[in-house]
């Protein structure tokens, strides 16, 4: 067991140096998905990535997870370079991909089984996590009995039960209604303030990105590049009150201007 599973989880730093990714198409051509990304993320930092569809946000996430290899460049998670699946990383997708045949608790315990972690300790941890998102009474229910927001909460618990040094989230709240989404943002912030995992959060929503992040990475498309990085030191915990602060509005406007310049947004 490493030191992390004992105390509160601590995030790990991420290094992305000169990373590019191109795909070979069926016709033999090449499509450049990402061109030369350089980004350093501090341990325990919450970084969002926003950008138009097809800018390679999700590709970047998959590269960091080690599930697909980069064409060039180097990625480090913690101090180790990424080669193949990284043990210290947990992923939350837009689709919750809960296993319908397992109860809520058994779903949360899936990584514990696969990684062969201590079952007794993690069972308690899974219960605590479910309670902290208001799902204590649903432990023995099947996912088919839960609403979309509840399902995504279970998926987040499933990611956090592993005490990941890095949490990768690919538009995790994209499929939820606006109200549930706002609640999920606050829940996520609360859990992050408690655990301080490093988080890479991909979203389409500029406001969501600004609300949650220490820094927002703005990407341009085809091939994906970093267009801007907005540093956001608004005080935490943030909430509904944060949205009316001048600096919040300023950050949102700055990112929106990028999207206007990129032609993703148009005011005419």
């Amino acid at each position, binding site marked *: 067991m490493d030191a992390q599973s004992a105390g509160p989880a601590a995030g790990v730093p991420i290094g992305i140096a000169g990373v590019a990714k191109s795909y070979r198409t069926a016709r033999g051509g090449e499509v450049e998905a990402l061109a030369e990304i350089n980004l350093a993320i501090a341990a325990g930092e919450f970084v969002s990535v926003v950008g138009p569809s097809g800018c390679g946000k999700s590709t970047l996430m*998959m590269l960091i*997870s*080690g*599930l697909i290899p980069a064409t060039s460049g180097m990625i480090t998670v913690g101090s180790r370079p990424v080669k193949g*699946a*990284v*043990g210290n*990383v*947990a*992923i939350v*997708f837009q*689709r919750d*991909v809960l*296993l*319908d*045949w*397992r109860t809520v608790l058994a779903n949360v315990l*899936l*990584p514990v*089984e*696969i*990684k062969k972690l201590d079952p007794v300790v993690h069972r308690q941890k899974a219960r605590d996590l479910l309670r902290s998102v208001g799902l204590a*009474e649903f432990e023995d229910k*099947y996912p*088919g*009995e839960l609403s979309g927001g509840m399902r995504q909460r279970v998926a987040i618990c499933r990611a956090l039960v*592993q005490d990941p040094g890095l949490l990768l989230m690919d538009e995790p709240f994209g499929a939820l209604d606006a109200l549930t989404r706002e609640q999920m943002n606050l829940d996520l912030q609360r859990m992050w303030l408690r655990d301080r995992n490093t988080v890479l959060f991909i979203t389409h929503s500029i406001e969501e990105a600004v609300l949650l992040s220490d820094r927002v990475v703005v990407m341009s498309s085809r091939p994906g590049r970093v267009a801007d990085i907005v540093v956001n030191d608004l005080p935490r915990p943030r909430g509904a009150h944060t949205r009316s602060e001048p600096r919040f509005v300023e950050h949102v406007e700055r990112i929106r201007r990028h999207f206007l310049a990129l032609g993703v947004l148009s005011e005419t």
Partner: protein
Amino acid sequence: MTTLAAAPPSSPTRITAWIGRNGPVLAIVAIIFAAWEAAVVALRVPDYILPSPSAIAAKIAGSWQLLMVNAFVTLEEILLGFALSVAVAIPLAIAVVYSRIFERVAFPFMVSLQTIPKVALAPILVMWLGYGIMPKVMVAFLISFFPIVINSVIGMRSAEKEMIYLVQSMGASELTTFLKIRLPKALPSIFGGLKVGMGQAVVGATVGEFIAAERGLGYLQLISQVRLDTPLLFAAVVVLSALGVLLFNAVVLVERIALPWSRVATEIAE
């Protein structure tokens, strides 16, 4: 919990609910039988053309032992054919999902074989395998095999790519991914194939008996036809149908026990 878990329904309400669900169907069946009975009596239709439902019932009661002896023969053929189908189809489905050669060569080959009417192979199988139980088992196998393979393949391919990424990110091996994701995810689809396959196995065994047999319900039908014993012919049909319904529901029962979560999902969908 208490607010969510409904109290177990007492038996009178269950019976009422059952009648409420199945009442219309039962009523229609009763009307058909009554009309049939009345028509046969009123028009003085001879028994060897169309026996009345009561005559068929009397025949079933009178020839109970004969019908059961033959039903067990047919049942044995169906179950052996079906078991053979499952034993071959599921490993083959796994091979198709995991092996390129099976996917590109064996699978298209099987699909093209599917277009051959298996019933047409029955005389050949009799020629090769004789008059015993084997040719019937083989026809039942051939005819029930395909729906099980195709549904298993579809099921094992149905896991979302995110689901696979997710367990891979946890360091799961291919075997773990299969056991924890692909197989359980495929089970509803596999059971769909098993239900169709069981029905097909009944057809296969009966047709096998039509071609050449010395025992079995299909054989009993042939004999009754030759002897113009139409009530016995109908009685054999009734027993064969009951057998089919029974076997189908046996698969449904196993499915319900094996997949409690699936029932939850369908109940909510309803």
